């Protein structure tokens, strides 16, 4: 929170993994798990999975025949296949699997994994914990130069990636070996917080220390601060040949090739009401409500359940929502401690401008966004440069939901632009 001396920047720092933190406590899966499969996104294809069908642990479930799939984390029967609406109109299909008492391991990957190659990675591990960006990594048309293994989490209080890098460095090293071979990348960079970076020399990659001040671990800022390259607005680090990947995703690839089984458990940071964090490990697809119950956190009316951390997370409307491969943290926030939003206009104090890591003119941008002038905002006030760190809204004296405005504007433009291009 704001200190007495408000002259300096708030200097929000990433949490540092305590030297001796208890390993993740395993939360046993409930009687069923729910997976969110992307799509159908307008397509009318019926889901290629029927109710009552049996699935094996580690089995690849692809509903619509595309490149998207999910991995069954348990053995059991499909109890439901239902549409699921996410943020900003994102469509998904929720697959609920009731666990059977006897586990059977799907052995397709074990048979295929002999040699690390795009063919053995892409069809089996793209939905592994940490969501390895394998589709991009194994794209022969657009070769990548550098693989960046993120051992720093993207949000405050979250410890997941730091933990994985430290506790599972063997798997990370193995994963790096596999990915190098499969994707033909020579240059591997491992990102860790500056003060801990010396400890990871044995993993096999160039070590780079990230400044612990939020949001230095954001890919765009890592590119700028550590690689000296600015990602052009509207592009991604991948366009410059840099592929960012969670340490957990690399570890999952490493573990998969070591054991012959597709990993199905996710490490996540559980953040309690008081901001205290602990690590838990659970099957992908576990409802978050089960995790809270297990740790004695009662969720009451008026609370927020946040997937992710306090700055960039996403609020869920139900404790039934499942842990997904990219859920690095879940957080319960009481009504009193959550930021409120006001209808006050911008008073032009300039706090947002001075804190913006993307050097945007947020005070002017927000006027355009409030008026719904998204095109102008993008053209004149650098909407596309935003890295969505949320600091502007964090410091806003008028409590304007700036990040929400920005996200909405980007979403609207993304929706409108392709249509306009098509009609042009």
């Amino acid at each position, binding site marked *: 929170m704001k200190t007495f001396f408000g002259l300096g920047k708030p200097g929000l720092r990433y949490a540092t993994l305590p030297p001796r933190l208890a390993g993740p406590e395993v939360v046993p899966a409930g009687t069923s798990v729910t997976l969110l499969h992307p799509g159908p996104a307008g397509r009318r294809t019926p889901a290629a999975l029927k109710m009552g069908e049996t699935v094996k642990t580690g089995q690849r479930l692809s509903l619509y025949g595309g490149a998207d799939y999910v991995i069954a984390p348990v053995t059991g029967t499909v109890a439901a296949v239902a549409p699921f609406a996410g943020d900003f109109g994102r469509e998904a299909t929720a697959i609920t699997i009731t666990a059977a008492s006897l586990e059977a391991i799907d052995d397709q990957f074990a048979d295929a994994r002999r040699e690390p190659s795009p063919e053995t990675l892409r069809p089996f591990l793209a939905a592994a914990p940490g969501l390895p960006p394998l589709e991009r990594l194994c794209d022969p048309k657009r070769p990548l130069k550098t693989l960046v293994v993120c051992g720093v989490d993207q949000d*405050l209080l979250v410890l997941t990636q730091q933990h994985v890098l430290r506790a599972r460095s063997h798997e990370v090293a193995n994963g790096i070996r596999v990915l190098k071979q499969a994707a033909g990348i020579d240059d591997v960079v491992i990102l860790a917080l500056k003060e801990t970076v010396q400890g990871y020399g044995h993993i096999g990659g160039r070590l780079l220390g990230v400044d612990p001040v939020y949001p230095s671990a954001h890919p765009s800022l890592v590119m700028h601060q550590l690689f000296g390259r600015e990602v052009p607005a509207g592009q991604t680090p991948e366009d410059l040949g840099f592929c960012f990947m969670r340490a957990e995703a690399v570890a999952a690839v490493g573990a998969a090739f070591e054991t012959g089984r597709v990993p199905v458990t996710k490490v996540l940071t559980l953040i309690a009401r008081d901001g205290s964090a602990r690590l838990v490990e659970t099957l992908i697809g576990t409802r978050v409500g089960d995790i809270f119950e297990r740790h004695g956190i009662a969720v009451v009316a008026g609370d927020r359940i946040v997937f992710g951390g306090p700055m960039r997370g996403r609020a869920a409307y139900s404790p039934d929502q499942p842990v997904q491969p990219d859920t690095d943290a879940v957080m319960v926030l009481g009504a009193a401690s959550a930021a409120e939003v006001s209808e006050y206009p911008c008073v032009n*104090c300039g706090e947002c401008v001075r804190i913006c890591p*993307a050097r945007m003119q947020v005070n002017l941008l927000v006027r355009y966004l409030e008026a719904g002038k998204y095109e102008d905002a993008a053209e004149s006030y650098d909407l596309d440069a935003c890295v969505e760190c949320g600091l502007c809204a964090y410091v806003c004296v008028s409590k304007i939901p700036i990040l929400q405005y920005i996200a909405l504007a980007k979403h609207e433009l993304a929706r409108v632009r392709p249509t306009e291009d098509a009609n042009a």
Partner: protein
Amino acid sequence: MLEHQKLIVSHAPFWHNGSRVTDRSRQIFLAALPAALFGVYQYGLSALGVLALSVSSSVLWELAFTRVAGRPVSVGDGTAAVIGLLLGMMLPAAMPWWGVLTGTFLAVVVARQIYGGIGANPFNPVAVALAILMLSWKGRMDFDAALVNYPFDFPAVYYLTAVKAFGTGAVGNISFGDLLLGRQIGGIGCTFGLGLILGGVYLIARGVIRWEIPLSMLAGVAVTAFVFNQVDPAKFAPPAFHLLTGYTLIGAFFLAPEDSSSPVNFMPMLIYGAVIGSVVVFIRDVGVFADGLPYAVLVGNLVQPLVDKIRPKALGKVV
């Protein structure tokens, strides 16, 4: 059990640093109080009357306007009270009640609410009101005339007018320590230099105002005054004199950094402050007014949107 709990869904970030408009107003009010109270000590109850009427009428004008215009009632944020206090501090203690009411009406309704209220005023409301008052009632705003009936134990001469009329010889024997400690006549809350500086430093430390603006404005005053002084030391007063007399300090710490009408980028803030600072001295040394600070602030406000276009290139902007 859990299934029936209604959760709140909102957008990130879920944290806020706790800053509020009300807090900022409170701190500005607090920072201005030492100088204001010194004015009450110096001029007695009539000064208290002007300040009280100014603050209360500002709040009431704001309340009345928001009611009539059907806007959300915003007097609770304290900005109207701050405008009232600052305007009162810049008036002579002998200002009649109708002058105060007109001033606060001009500041709150004309200069702020009709532009859309807080955050939307292109000009500093206090500077607008003061400029109009100075043009409309010259005699009432002339400190020599207005304060003629007050007994002081120091020369009851408005130094800026004296310098303008008679050159630096007229103020040759004043000590700058006296100016800092308020042994001069002027606006109710504008004479106690030390109090204003302390208030300003407090606001800078708390992050309520940007240090760039007051500093560059004072530098602008000092440099311009120095140049004039070098040209003709007998006619133009030295920098320290300009820094510690008239409205300079209250302007630097309380008027120029007003959020809505000032720039937010680094270079523009420096330019904005320097423009105001040098225009102040230009008006004092070659203009017709003894103290042109309100006009200088308005000139600064005028160039603000333009200079604030000087901004760093956003991350990843190639062109």
